[in-house]
C-alpha cells in the first residue's frame, strides 16, 4: 500500500514538474498564437483584445495558476485552432495513436522474436549474418525515412496500398468508439478489420522496423549468452531438441534485458508517431501535436505533453512490473 502511494505521489510530482517546464518554455520562445492569427490591417488594439480573450494578457505565473486550477478539474482549456476543449480532442485522437503504437509494437515483437530465435536455433553463419545485416539496416534508417521509402515504394510497386488516413474516406465508418481495430475485432467485423489493417500496416511498419531491429540485437545476444549456460547443457544431455531448449529454457532468461530495452524503445516509438502520423495523415495525437506546435496552440500543446508524459511514466511502471515478474530475484527481494 505504501509503495502504491509513493508511486502515485511520484507520478503527480513528475507531471507537475513537466507542466511547469512546458508552460514556461512555451511562453518564453518566440511566436505566440495571437501573432499567428493577426491578419493584415490588425491594430495594436485588436492584438490586445485577442490577448485578453485568450487570457494571455496576464503574467506567466498568474496564467499558470489559473491553468493548473482548471486542470485539477480535468479542464485543460480550449484549443485555439480547433476551438474545442483540449481534453475532448485528446480523448478523440488518442485511440488512433494507441492502436498504431500497439500494431507497430506487435510487428516489432513478432519480427524480432522470429528472427532472434531463428538465428540462435539454426546456428548457420550465413543466416546470422543476414539477420544481423537486416537488423543493422532497419536500425540505421530512422522511422520517418522508412515512411518516405514506403510512400515511394507504393508509387512504384503497390499502387493499391493506401498511404494516407486510417480508412477509406469514401467509406462511412459506423464505430461507437475510436478504437476501430479493437472494435472491429470485438464485434467480429473481420472485413472491416482487414481494411483497417491495410491502412495501418505501412505507418506501423515504418514505426516498428527500427524497434524490431533494436529488440532483435538484444534478444539474439541474450539468447546466445543463455545458450552457453550450464542448464542448457544439462537440457541437451536430457535429449531435448535445440529449438525446445531455445524456447523452453533460454528464452525466459533472455527476456529480462529485452523487457528493459523494449520499454525504453517503446517511449521512443510513441514519440515517433509525431512525424509518422503527419506523413501518413494518421488522425492521432502525434499529428495533432505537430499542428498544435505550428499554430502555437498553447493549451493543446500543454495537454498533449502531459498526456505523453503520463504515458511514458505508465510504460516505465509497467516495464518495472514485467521485470519483476520475469526475474525471480527481484520478487524475493521485495
Amino acid at each position: 500500500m505504501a509503495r502504491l502511494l509513493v508511486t502515485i505521489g511520484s507520478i503527480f510530482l513528475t507531471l507537475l514538474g513537466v507542466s511547469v517546464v512546458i508552460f514556461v518554455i512555451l511562453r518564453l520562445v518566440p511566436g505566440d498564437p495571437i501573432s499567428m492569427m493577426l491578419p493584415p490591417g490588425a491594430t495594436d488594439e485588436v492584438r490586445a483584445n485577442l490577448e485578453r480573450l485568450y487570457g494571455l494578457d496576464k503574467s506567466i505565473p498568474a496564467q499558470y495558476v489559473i491553468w493548473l486550477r482548471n486542470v485539477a478539474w480535468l479542464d485543460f482549456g480550449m484549443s485555439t485552432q480547433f476551438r474545442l476543449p483540449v481534453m475532448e480532442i485528446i480523448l478523440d485522437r488518442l485511440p488512433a495513436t494507441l492502436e498504431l503504437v500497439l500494431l507497430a509494437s506487435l510487428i516489432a515483437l513478432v519480427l524480432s522474436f522470429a528472427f532472434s530465435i531463428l538465428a540462435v536455433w539454426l546456428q548457420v553463419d550465413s543466416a546470422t549474418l543476414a539477420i544481423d545485416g537486416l537488423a543493422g539496416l532497419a536500425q540505421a534508417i530512422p522511422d520517418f525515412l522508412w515512411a518516405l521509402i514506403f510512400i515511394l515504394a507504393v508509387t512504384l510497386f503497390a499502387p493499391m496500398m493506401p498511404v494516407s488516413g486510417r480508412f477509406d474516406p469514401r467509406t462511412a465508418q459506423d464505430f461507437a468508439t475510436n478504437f476501430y481495430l479493437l472494435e472491429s475485432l470485438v464485434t467480429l467485423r473481420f472485413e472491416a478489420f482487414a481494411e483497417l489493417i491495410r491502412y495501418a500496416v505501412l505507418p506501423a511498419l515504418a514505426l516498428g522496423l527500427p524497434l524490431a531491429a533494436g529488440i532483435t540485437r538484444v534478444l539474439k545476444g541474450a539468447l546466445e549468452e543463455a545458450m552457453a549456460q550450464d542448464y542448457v547443457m544439462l537440457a541437451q544431455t536430457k535429449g531435448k531438441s535445440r529449438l525446445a531448449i531455445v524456447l523452453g529454457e533460454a528464452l525466459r532468461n533472455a527476456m529480462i534485458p529485452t523487457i528493459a530495452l523494449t520499454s525504453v524503445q517503446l517511449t521512443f516509438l510513441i514519440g515517433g508517431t509525431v512525424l509518422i502520423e503527419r506523413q501518413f495523415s494518421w488522425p492521432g495525437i502525434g499529428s495533432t501535436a505537430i499542428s498544435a506546435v505550428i499554430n502555437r496552440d498553447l493549451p493543446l500543446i500543454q495537454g498533449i505533453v502531459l498526456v505523453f508524459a503520463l504515458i511514458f511514466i505508465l510504460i516505465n511502471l509497467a516495464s518495472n512490473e514485467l521485470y519483476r515478474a520475469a526475474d525471480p530475484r527481484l520478487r524475493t527481494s521485495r
Partner: protein
Amino acid sequence: MKKLLGPLAGAALAANVAFADDSTLTIAYNVSLPSWDATVGVSAVNPTIQSIYKSVYDQYIDQNPDLSFRPGLLTEWGWNEDRTKVFMEVREGAFWHNGDPVTPADVVWSLERAGKEETGNPIQFLWSTLGNFTVDGNRVEADVLRFDPTIFKWMAFLTAYVLPKDYYTEVGAEGFEKSPIGSGPYMVDEYVANSFVRLKRYDEYWGGAPEFEMVIFKFLPDASARVAEVETGASDITLEIPYEEYDRLAAKDGLNGVTTPVSDIGMIFINDVGVMEDANVRKAAAHAINKDLIVDRLLRGYGVPIDTLQAPEYAAFTAETTVAYDPDKSKELLAASGYSTDNPVKFKIQTTRGFKPKDYEMIQAVTGMWKRVGIEAEIEVYEIAKHFDLRARDALAPAAFYNWGNSIGDPSTSTGFSMFGPSPHSTWDTDDVDAMIGPLWGEEDEDVRIAGYQRVDAYIAENAMVIPLLQFVQPIIYRDGLSVTPHVANFLLPQNVSSN
C-alpha cells in the same frame, strides 16, 4: 470518455457502407482544416484553408477565378452618395444545408457578430466600421461608423462568411464545430481532423448543384504523399508539389498539369535599422538581385518577377515601376558609402526553410549575388511563428524573407498594411511613406486611391524600402478526364473542377 471505454462495453456495430463511385472527386490537399468556424481564430485568416470554407459556406461577395468580384449571398451592394450608409441586397432562393432559407437577418447577425470584440474575429476592426443595421425586405442598410473604401472588397476576403444565425445560436460554438452547416455548394458529411473531410453535394444550392456528388479533401501536408496519391490514382487532383515533380507528373500518361500565377508574392522585408538606414545599401541590395535568374534556375520558370508589391492581377499594378538588375550600379552605390567586395557591408537576413517553394535556396542565391557586389549577409532560418512574432514586435532582422498573400488584390492589403508604419505588420516605419499612405486609407475616389498607391509603390521602389522578388505560381496535377479552372486567389475549388 465513452469513446475510450466503448469497446470494453462490447457495443454492437453496423457494417461499413461504401459510397465510392465515379462521381467522387478526391483532392490530395496540402493543409489540414482545424476549425469549421471560418470567422474566428487562426484558421479564419489562413489563406490556404479558404478553398474548403468556400466549398461549404457562401461569402457576402464572391470572386471570379481572375480575382474580379461577383455576387455571393449579396446580389447588389454599395454606398449612398455621401458615403454615410451602405446597402446590401440579400439573395433570394438561397438555403442553409438544413433547409432553412438564408435571410437578411443571417447577414446582419453575421456582420454584427464579426464586429464584436468578444467574438474574437481577427478582422473585427474592419467589420465594426458598420453599425445600426436595418432590414427592409431583402435589403439591408447600415450606418458607416468609420469609412473604409475597401469594405466591400473585404466582403470577399478573410472571415467574410455568412453563418446561419438560428442554427448557430441553437447549437452554440462547440456544436457548430462538430456539426457545421453553410449555404455553399457542398455539405459536410464526415470530418476527421488531420486526416480528411468528406463533402456531399448540396442539390438545393442557389448557384446550381455542382457536378460531383461527393468531394473528399485528404489532408496531406507531406508533398511526397500527395505525389504518391495522385500518381497511384488514390486521389484525382493535387496541388503545391515541388516544381520538379510537377514537370515529371505533367508529362506522364494519364495525368495533366496546369500552373497559374497566384495572389501570393515572395519579398524581402527591409527593417529601417542599422545599415539599412543607408539608402545606398538598400538600393545596392535591390539592384544586385537577378530575379529572372532565380525564377528560371531555381523555380524552373514557375514564378513571375515583380518590382512592387503588386502582382499583375492586382488593382494597382503598373508595369511602369521597375527596378533594374544592375550589379555595376550596386557596386557604385556601395562604394559611395565606403563599401566594396574587400570591405563588404554586413547584415543578417532571415528566411523560412520549406515554408514556400525554394525559399531558403532563393535567399542563398540572393546572398550569393549580394556577395559579388560587396554585401555579406548572414542567413538565419526561422519558423513562420517566429516571423509573425518578430514582425509584430518590429524586431525582424535588417532583411527578412516572407510571402504575402492578397487575394482581393487591393493595394491597401499589400503596400498599405506592409509598409504603413503604425500597422503591426509593417517593418518599415518612416514618416515620408506614412505621409503618402495615410490619406489613402479614407480616400473615397477609387481612381485617386489606386493612383495614390501607384505613386507610393514607385517611391518605395526608388528608395528600396522593400525588395519584392516574385509572384508565386500554383502547380496543379489532375487525372485524365477532368477539367480544372485554376483560381488566381490560390483556391482549388471542387466547384471549379468538372469532367471532360
